[in-house]
């Protein structure tokens, strides 16, 4: 049974108090009535089912009732973090793809940035 941190209650609670809510960061198109069949398919039906890092929604349904997001590893079930609904998708160092590294993380000179990966 998972142990889940609710970012609103600010504590870890047992999975029994939560309900899973599917993938996170899938925004409902504001012009949903006008989107194409392909766009609707992509929005509503298609999911990645990754092995490893996933961003997903949870609701603390038997607690504060709030929806929030969490970053979890689908293999180990380790939670990297959870965060409030509406907050941007976080960058998980060492886990998120490098392409998703936010600009602020790229500021500042590092050995890797200038010389490449140490051999």
């Amino acid at each position: 049974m998972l142990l889940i941190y609710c970012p609103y209650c600010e504590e870890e609670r047992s999975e029994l108090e939560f309900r899973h809510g599917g993938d996170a960061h899938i925004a409902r198109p504001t012009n949903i009535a006008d989107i194409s069949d392909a766009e609707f398919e992509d929005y509503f039906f298609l999911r990645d089912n990754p092995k490893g890092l996933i961003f997903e929604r949870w609701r603390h349904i038997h607690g504060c009732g709030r929806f929030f997001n969490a970053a979890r590893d689908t293999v180990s079930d380790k939670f990297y973090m959870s965060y409030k609904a509406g907050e941007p998708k976080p960058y998980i160092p060492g886990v998120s793809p490098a392409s998703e590294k936010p600009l602020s993380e790229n500021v500042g000179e590092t050995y890797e940035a200038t010389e490449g990966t140490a051999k």
Partner: protein
Amino acid sequence: MSGANRIAGQGRLTPARTARFTFDGKTFDALEGDTVASALLANGVHLVGRSFKYHRPRGILSAGPEEPNALVDVSRDAARRQPNVRAPVQEVFDGMKVESQNRFPSLAFDIGGINNLMSPFFAAGFYYKTFMWPKAAWEKLYEPFIRKAAGLGVAPTEEDPDHYASRYAYCDVLVAGAGVAGLSAALAAAEAGARVILVDEQPEVGGALHYDLSVKIDGQNGYDWAQATAAKLKAMENVTVLTRTTAFGYYNHNFVGLVERVTDHLARPDRKLPRERLWQVRAKRVILATGSIERHMVFANNDRPGIMLASAARTYLNHFGVAVGRKVGVYTANDSAYEAAFDLKRAGVTVAAIVDNREKPGEGVLAEARKLGIEVLAGHSVVDTKGKLRVSSMSVARNGGGSARSIPIDALLMSAGWTPSVHLFSQSRGKVAYDAATGRFLPGTYAQDCLSVGSCNGTDGLQATIEEGLAAGELMARATGHEGGGKVELSGENAFEWTGGMAGSGEGAGVDTTVKAFVDFQNDVCAKDIRLAVREGMHSIEHIKRFTTNGMATDQGKLSNIHGLAIASEVLNREIPKIGLTTFRAPYTPVTFGALISHSRGDLFDPARKTPMHAWEEAHGAVFEDVGNWKRAWYYPRSGETMHDAVNRECRTVRSAAGVFDASTLGKIEVVGPDAAEFMNLMYTNGWDTLKPGRCRYGIMLREDGFIYDDGVVGRLSEDRFHVTTTTGGAPRVMHHMEDYLQTEFPHLKVWLTSTTEQWAVIAVQGPKAREILEPLVEGIDMSNEAFPHMSVREGKFCGVPTRLFRMSFTGEAGYEVNVPADYGEAVWEAIWARAEPLGACAYGTETMHVLRAEKGYIIVGQDTDGTVTPYDASLAWAVSKKKTDFVGIRGLKRPDLVKEGRKQLVGLLTKDPKVVLEEGAQIVADPNEPKPMTMLGHVTSSYWSENCGRSIAMALVAGGQARMGQTLYVPMPDRTIAVEVSDMVFVDKEGGRLNG
């Protein structure tokens, strides 16, 4: 005397404290603290069971939970009976009844033993091949017969009268196993101030110290040190010590399941005590100190009663004071078995010989054996045994050939080395790694916050084990923020460091296909079976396991896995890690259903929801039906009435006079806020801007894919307040669905949602006399048709209490739904009933409600829809706003498949023979003579006898149904084909005039 084989001065039990039990009807004496196994051995009983497949006589192999043979049926009384209990684990209590299993007519003479002679026909995988034909015979003949012949114990038939407890616990450090390593770890963690839970499956702590008398820790005898340490830990406030408690499952995020056996060892348990207690522990850190399990040797006829693990014989002697034989042989591949021989010899038992299949045994044990005058046959193997119901001799031969020599014995102790217990580690999703040097699988990559210590981690040597335990305890305490206490130091010494060990079949296992050298005792898998599996093409251990059933019995291969792997490795000529290890699954040992379900049975299995009027309904003879967790009045039979009679009467009465119905279970959600109407516009297909306060509208809620999710009448109480009703079963998910959109997609809307389902009692009063019944009870509401028309809501007082009075109808009659605070529900119902009854009205239940709504073609979401029905399919296009630019489902409704011609649509069906009532769920076809498989057009969703129509009526989902009006279709049934005509769905009052009556 508690058994002829009890040796005075040996063991730790008190001779004066006896307990009496029966085994297969015969009475035996035991000592308090005995297990069933030790007590039987004390009385010279080795034969305790018959094997699974071949019905071979079997004895006691082990002294622990790994026992594959000695499974017995233990009972306290007729109802308190448990099959498949492992005799070395079950403690004896006075008055206990023990029965052997899987034998007929008796243990000593078992007819099923013929299977042993027939064994050439029962080769591995035989059931995959032999019983394939004819097909029908599998179910009727082969399978029941095989089950009976190969059965384990028999499940009890009476209800379990015991109760079970369950609790959650939290700690900094959970230590599984209270041997040297676990005690050291717990001590260090506890001294540092961590909250510690220490568990061990045995009645006392100590683990291997139960049998190893040579161990001294801090100058004290090892076992005594263990008890003193446990006492010290128990006295500490931050420590819980649980014995007779098995950590059976290691789940996500350090969640560990424990089962504590509370009363199974007591003769007269306090009735207040639970039989078992389930502990669900969330630990910040876990220390696994689960020890090792000794492996048996694989050789011909290694399963006769009297042949057992060397450490088990040592336990029976040193802890229970029982000699397992008078003249014992030892067959080993490692040093530890020598110590069993030494202990027995010193206790006065004759040791016939130690047969060691190594050329070079450990020097220390060899010297000691010489000193004690025990013959050691190094480089030899036991190649066979004799003895019908107990071993009587072993045949010993020099490795590599030579003639065999028979040595008479009455017990044979064996050891092939030790298998680290990595079960819990593996359950935690840790990856084991093969250590080729010692031939063991050890904890490799960790997946959770845990550490393995002691022999389960491959740590040999007493001092090393102590130090590893202490270090882990301290480390885990520090990791959970506990810095207290000084450094704990302990020193230990023991007689010999053990070397050696082997896996796989030895010289005596035979290479032919007839020798029975058992690898898995519980499932009767021999070395030859593993070889056969490989010959038949199974090269992965997962395949070999399933083909032979090796390791698939209830002992989960605690003894057999490594041997099975090693034999496959020999035959395939590939290294063990290349063949792979099967994954260990929870539970480590069997757990009773009672412990798992605890209080959740009978009335407490699932909560029952009752409306405020439930008691009245019960008193008036209502028959109830379950709708979700709700108990709903189904119909109210009068004396002598069948259900059919009662429903017909209720249906007639509602349309001719009136009926009173408990609608309290309807889901109710209060939608409040300045943006409430905008929110409603997004959640429902209908437009809500035009709905004036005081009016109601039937709303349809879709999912984003365009299919109907829920429906219900919504009343607008004011500009910013809606009283939403949902289906009875749908209330929680509709609330969840609304919250989801409000919190995550439309968080800018100022709306608050409150579930009010249980705040309002709802009494529907329907029929021509409804207004007459209610009018005198209403205050402050003009009840006239003009002032209060159909589909309106008013607030006022009813019987003096606040009400939300709805003018609405789910029957097609003029009707009202009286909402009053739930606490007043019963009183208001009685007041209404007092007026209704004299006017000729009746109380009606859900069955009548269903018929009446079907007569009007009103759908029930979940009955007439199934998650693939759109509002257009259900003839509810009028409820979908054409003006709105957005609502949940607006895009889904435009999907190509949802606008396609020929979709299944809801229509009415009238049987050609009006007396015939269709079966709900029945399939519909156009051509009853079409060869199978026939083209199915749809199915019947609702079907009733309509007393008001004087005929049957039905609703159905039919492909292209709207275009089939008046067509004849067919409903094929097993015994006949029923002709039906497609119609619209309104069967009563097509103009709808009665609503305004």
